[in-house]
């Protein structure tokens, strides 16, 4: 125990606190204090009976110290008061009788009472301080955890969760929200109110009880409000950044789309314009063969433009969610053969092998759109593989489904890019700079799915080292829903 220089200053605040808000005793103290007091008194009486009055006084003093240290200031003072009474009653002569007759009676009694009081106050105060320190450290831990959670908060909901864990609802309503700036309170308030409408369990498994929550008297509410304000500002900024990022991405996509459209529209137009203006200006200087070649260029580039326009229109059709036109029973060999024919016209030297072993190849589809599907896949294959690499088209029935595989022997598609090849406007790293819009495969996927089929890509195909296989699976017309009605 450490004595402080000014006894008055030591004694007065605890008394004020005792009278004031802190005159609290725990249940344990209420039971323990009388027990200790009783034991000390019994020991004192026994000592007195055996004519050891000093030992008797010391026993009582010990009781005061034990109670003060164990039960706090209130317990210490109560014990001290009782001990002074018992001293007078049990120990001072005449025993079992009150009364102070002479100065010789006064001196030991007053000395004992003062000593008892000082002991009770000092030991009790020590206990109270230890308890207060413990409480403060607990609050500090809660405050630290609270501020750590706030620092990790990336959205308002995180802030609300942190508040719910650390601070009681009353404290927030009465002490924290009014401390916030208008703007911050307007942001946090609605979130908070909707959060407290939910059961507390929603705040998380480690939700604190009210006892462990931050008390408005113990924490600097200004500091808490500042922490909250910073966290709210940060969440706001993060929100704005995420929004800006989303806008930037969509702008990037638009730019890529425009650049791609511009390239794919202007390239054929450029060839047509160059050929037409050459014929116009220098026509008579060309020999007949050159002139025919130029007209051929104009013709084929017009077809190319037409195909591109058709693709854009198909895309629009898919995007607006239009029904896949007129569906009918289609023998897959017909649109497939027609698509292969178109591709051969584009690249006559390319070897395209057919392996059609399906007995029945009837599916429920729109024939023009199905042809577009095959053409897009084949066109993709011839565009991105060397001209000498053959392409194989296989058709087979597997159970109730028709499986179509279109396999090229090109360089294949990397595992990273494979999941994205059906995405609109996706173009592989190797195809950058080539013409093509990244539309073909996404249109094929949209159409196949409209017919109730599936499409996927395998690279390299089973049993091969390089190349890519696009696999389409369509329900056979006999098993398709509409097939029974129309077939």
């Amino acid at each position, binding site marked *: 125990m450490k004595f402080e220089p000014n006894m008055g200053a030591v004694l007065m605040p605890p008394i004020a606190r005792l009278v004031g808000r802190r005159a609290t005793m725990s249940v344990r103290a209420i039971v323990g204090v009388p027990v200790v007091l009783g034991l000390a008194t019994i020991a004192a009486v026994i000592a007195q009976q055996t004519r050891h009055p000093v030992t008797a006084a010391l026993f009582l003093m010990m009781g005061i110290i034990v109670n003060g240290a164990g039960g706090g200031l209130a317990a210490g003072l109560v014990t001290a008061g009782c001990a002074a009474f018992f001293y007078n009653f049990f120990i001072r002569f005449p025993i079992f009788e009150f009364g102070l007759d002479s100065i010789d009676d006064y001196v030991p009694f007053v000395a004992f009472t003062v000593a008892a009081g000082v002991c009770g106050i000092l030991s009790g105060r020590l206990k109270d301080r230890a308890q207060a320190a413990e409480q403060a450290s607990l609050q500090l831990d809660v405050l630290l955890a609270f501020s750590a959670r706030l620092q990790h908060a990336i959205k308002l909901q995180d802030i609300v969760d942190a508040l719910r864990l650390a601070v009681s609802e009353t404290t927030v309503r009465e002490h924290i929200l009014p401390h916030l700036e208008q703007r911050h309170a307007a942001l946090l308030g609605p979130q908070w109110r909707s959060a407290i409408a939910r059961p507390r369990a929603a705040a998380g498994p480690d939700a604190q009880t009210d006892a462990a929550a931050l008390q408005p008297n113990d924490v600097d509410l200004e500091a808490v409000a500042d922490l909250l304000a910073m966290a709210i500002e940060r969440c706001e900024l993060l929100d704005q950044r995420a929004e800006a990022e989303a806008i930037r991405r969509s702008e990037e996509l638009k*730019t890529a789309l*425009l*650049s791609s459209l*511009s*390239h794919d529209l*202007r*390239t*054929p*137009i*450029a*060839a*047509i*314009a*160059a*050929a037409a*203006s*050459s014929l116009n*200006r*220098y026509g008579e*200087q*060309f020999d007949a063969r*050159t002139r025919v*070649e*130029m007209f051929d*260029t104009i013709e*084929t*580039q017009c077809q190319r433009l037409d195909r591109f326009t058709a693709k854009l229109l198909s895309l629009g059709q898919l995007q607006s969610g239009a029904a896949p036109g007129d569906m009918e029973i289609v023998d897959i060999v017909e649109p497939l053969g027609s698509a292969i024919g178109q591709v051969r016209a584009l690249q006559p030297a390319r070897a395209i092998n057919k392996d059609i072993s399906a007995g029945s190849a009837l599916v429920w589809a729109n024939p023009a759109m199905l042809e577009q599907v095959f053409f897009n896949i084949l066109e993709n294959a011839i565009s991105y593989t060397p001209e000498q690499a053959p392409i194989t088209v296989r058709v087979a029935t597997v159970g109730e489904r028709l499986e179509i595989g279109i396999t090229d022997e090109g360089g294949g598609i990397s595992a990273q890019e494979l999941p994205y090849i059906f995405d609109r406007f996706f173009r592989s790293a190797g*195809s*950058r*700079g*080539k*013409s093509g819009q990244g539309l073909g495969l996404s249109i094929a996927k949209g159409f196949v799915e409209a017919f109730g089929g599936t499409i996927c890509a395998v690279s390299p195909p089973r049993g091969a080292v390089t190349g890519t296989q696009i696999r389409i699976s369509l329900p056979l017309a006999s098993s398709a829903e509409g097939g029974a009605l129309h077939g």
Partner: protein
Amino acid sequence: MAETILIIDDEPAISRTLIPVLRTQGYEVETATTAAEALRRARQTAFDVALLDLGLPDADGREIIGRLHSLSCRAIIVISARHQEAEKVAALDEGADDYLSKPFSVDELMARIRAALRRPQAAGSSAKHFVSQDLAIDYAARRVIVRGDEIRLSPKEYALLECLSQHGGQVVTRRQLLLAGWNDPTTDSQNLRTYITLLRQKLELDPAEPRVILTEAGVGYRLQLAV
């Protein structure tokens, strides 16, 4: 000896059309479809003009501009369907001499090729005079004659006109002009617009409808050789 032209474009339809036209005009023509092939051909032959498409399968055309120049390719005309002005400017700043947007007419292409060939190999070294339909410049005497009449230009106006005329018929980027007039490419290009307006008032018959100094939107200006 005939001047040689290298067409670098992965689009066969374009080169198939341009080859016969350029040949009838007396040029020797070679083609390349990739950046690598273009550099290989440039190593073997010193081309007078390279027509370069920016969207090549193996590289961005811009990346090979510097190397084509160092392989003694006299002039590089970028031909591209890209619509972004920024890319054209970047290609020109990279060292390209001119650009042409797809689609183009063969007359425009011929005019650009002639302008490129007309330019002396080392800029400004040998030429003493500039003569076009409307304009004559004596570089040594710093005299400018417009349709027969001598006009007086401020030093800055003259510097800009000199720069434009040294690239006669070709596009000159704003950056190049700012360097020529202010020696500082970060100068506010509003200054440049002001001086171009002043020049047009002295050179053009109708400054509101310029025919001598043409604006290349978003890129720079071009001094027209013949109307």
